[in-house]
């Protein structure tokens, strides 16, 4: 049962990534092509998910939206992961003042609600793909920092690390060989889990009108553009919502599964 759900989740995510990567070939129309005379058409063979209030093909927009949403989420996640994990390790290994200052800074950022930080950043640097990615990555960085810092501290007090130190291993070697390896088991499942957070945050920002600028579609701004048409064309908003929900559910299941597998693998090793 559990394995099946995980496999389905993996299948969903792969299918989405496949659609996103091959958007140019799969989308039957350009996502920005306005056709005012064919607006709000229900699903039909020519437009399999119908057309939107500007007469654009919803399926084409959806495929590109997957690309943009995944790109924004992965980009922001990668930045947050690199910075957060690196600083977390540095903090744990160096300790003393460095640790205190870094921890204090990230605690302050972490204490503020992520959504509001993101809004503040977008208001300062302006909306757009890069702005949105920067805003999301800043809200995720403290989580990776805390996670990797506490995990690294746990590793550093272990006996084999003490032994290595006594044998004269350099700080860099300890960081890479011992701490880094253990951190992977913590950070990778967290990253998959955070990917769903990043997607949800991008969607939320777009729904309040920040985030990626039109006509570029993202799952979130499709919802915000179509939400006023629930009574007229309910399929418009239902599809992106369903996809976001499916993606987030799948990613969460995968993260859990990955967590289990990686831990088992590390224990065996």
């Amino acid at each position, binding site marked *: *049962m*559990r394995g099946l*759900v995980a496999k389905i989740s993996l299948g969903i995510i792969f299918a989405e990534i496949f659609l996103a990567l091959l958007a140019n070939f799969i989308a039957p129309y350009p996502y*920005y*092509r*306005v056709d*005012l*005379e064919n*607006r*709000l058409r*229900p*699903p039909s063979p020519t437009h399999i998910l119908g057309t939107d*209030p*500007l*007469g654009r093909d919803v399926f084409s927009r959806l495929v590109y939206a997957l690309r943009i949403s995944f790109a924004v989420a992965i980009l922001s996640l990668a930045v947050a992961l690199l910075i957060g994990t690196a600083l977390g390790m540095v903090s744990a290994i160096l300790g003393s003042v460095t640790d205190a200052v870094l921890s204090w800074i990230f605690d302050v950022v972490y204490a503020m609600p992520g959504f509001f930080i993101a809004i503040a950043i977008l*208001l300062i640097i*302006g*909306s*757009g793909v890069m702005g949105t990615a920067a805003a999301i990555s800043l809200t995720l960085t403290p989580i990776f920092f805390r996670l990797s810092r506490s995990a690294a501290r746990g590793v550093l007090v272990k006996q084999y690390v003490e032994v290595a130190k006594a044998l004269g291993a350099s700080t860099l070697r300890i960081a890479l060989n011992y701490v880094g390896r253990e951190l992977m088991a913590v950070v990778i499942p967290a990253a998959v889990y955070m990917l769903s957070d990043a997607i949800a945050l991008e969607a939320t920002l777009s729904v*309040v*009108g*920040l985030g990626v*600028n*039109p*006509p570029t579609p993202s799952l979130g701004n499709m919802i915000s*553009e179509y*939400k*006023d*048409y*629930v*009574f*007229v*064309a*309910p*399929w418009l908003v*239902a*599809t992106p*919502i*369903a996809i976001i*929900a*499916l993606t987030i*559910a799948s990613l*969460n*299941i995968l993260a*859990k599964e990955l967590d289990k597998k990686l831990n088992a693998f590390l224990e065996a090793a």
Partner: protein
Amino acid sequence: MNRKFLYLVILIIIAVLASYVSESFLTRRGASITITVPTTSTTVYLLSNPMQNATLRIALSTDISTIDIHYATGVADFEVLGNVYESLFRITYNGSKLAYIPWLVKEFKQLNDTAWLFVLRNGIMFQNGERLTAYDVKASLERSMRLSGIGKQLLTDAKGRPIISDIVIINDTAFIIMLREPFTPLIEHLAHLSTAIMPRDVALKYWNGPINSTQDVIGTGPFMLESYEKGSRAVLKRFDGYWGRKPAIQNLVYLILPDANARISAILSGSVDIATGVSPDMVNTLRAQGIEVYRVTGVRLVLVAINCLRIPDVRVRQALNYAINRSAIVKELMDGYAQVAMGIASPVFPDAAVLEPYNYNVSKARELIEEAGFAGKKLTLLVSTRSPKDVQLAQVVQQYLKAVGVDVEIVQMEHTAFLKRVFIDHDFDLAIYGPSPSSLYYALTYWRTNASLNGPQYSNPEVDVLLDRIAREVNESKRLELYRDVQEVIWRDAPAMWLYFEDVVVAARPSVKGLQILPFQKLVLDSMYIG
């Protein structure tokens, strides 16, 4: 845990399928029922309203920004507070043109170029039981000129000096307004609610700042403000001592519902009687459910401002105007609920000129752009996220401009940031917005050099001179000529892509009778009753 996710996934799939099914059901139903509903506001004349204890609930799309009429700026502010306050004159609409009629004033007479005599109607009471006198008028107008953003614009000249030099009180009901210089649109501007009359005590009490207590919201209007909860509702009660025709309904409740779906479901379910800010896309759905939809031509001119300092070449600005297919936008995007702009002021204003249209002409636009060496330029188009229609419009404009070789990048912003960027920093190439003026003269003053609402920083000394001459020209036919000239000049100079005048669309349950709507998105409840 995983089982839960599985259920969630199944639930979502069912929801999606259900939405498709319900849609095909809805469209079928919509197609089979054709209901003809009056599309213009009709006036029901009754000798006297039947007094009812009914409560009327109205859904508004935006919250009010103040409870002080002199600080009011938004449509919602005037909608709610316009029931409490009245001005010396009143703006009415007969279905095709606006008129400015004496209201609190019984008679008025222009004594000479700079002096106007006014006599107040007898027996007008404020809601606190005091009688309206000329002293209240003097204090109110002076406060309005002093504090009110719009009042200042209406009652000051181009140099920022008040047009009124003094208000001389003759007796309790008569007073003379002394002007610094002749000002022909005086009556139109005294009809604006930003110059509304409040008791002298209240005006003096809040001489330097906004009214902050509902107790002090006192006017001469048919309703009293009973309570106001920010972001939620304003409750008004009939004022039984009202001097004019007393309204039929007892209570008036404005509910603030910014979400379009919430307003639609509220009116479908009957939890509100009237909903404002209805998108044309909703009209068929509403009519299919038996809701009446009213429309009137609006004063809101939707335009794309062109920053004249960044695009000083008039050929480019005209080319951008030729690049847009206005009739397609009006017919399709607006579903016909708008009028193609044939001038820079709505046709509902008396003396609004109908000018030579910028017909959709891609080759002409391309020619002009190439002639000016503007081909391949990249522009940013600023749009506020407050209006979903504006965001859609931005994408349509983008496509039209692409067709004539101008690349446009859309930048959407939160509304207050948008206003600052456009009207204070002037940091944009193109920007979508729509001013809603109350008089023709006021509509034209937006385009004066350095005017506060002159977003694109348009400046033409000829326009400034013509506007000054209009203010001084007493001869009506000469003034009409000047009005036409100035509209022509601004239209040709094209500090904006003039698009369309948006219709005001209001939905009401069938039980609502005698409702009238002004082109400023203002409801008139004078002869309204629940049938």
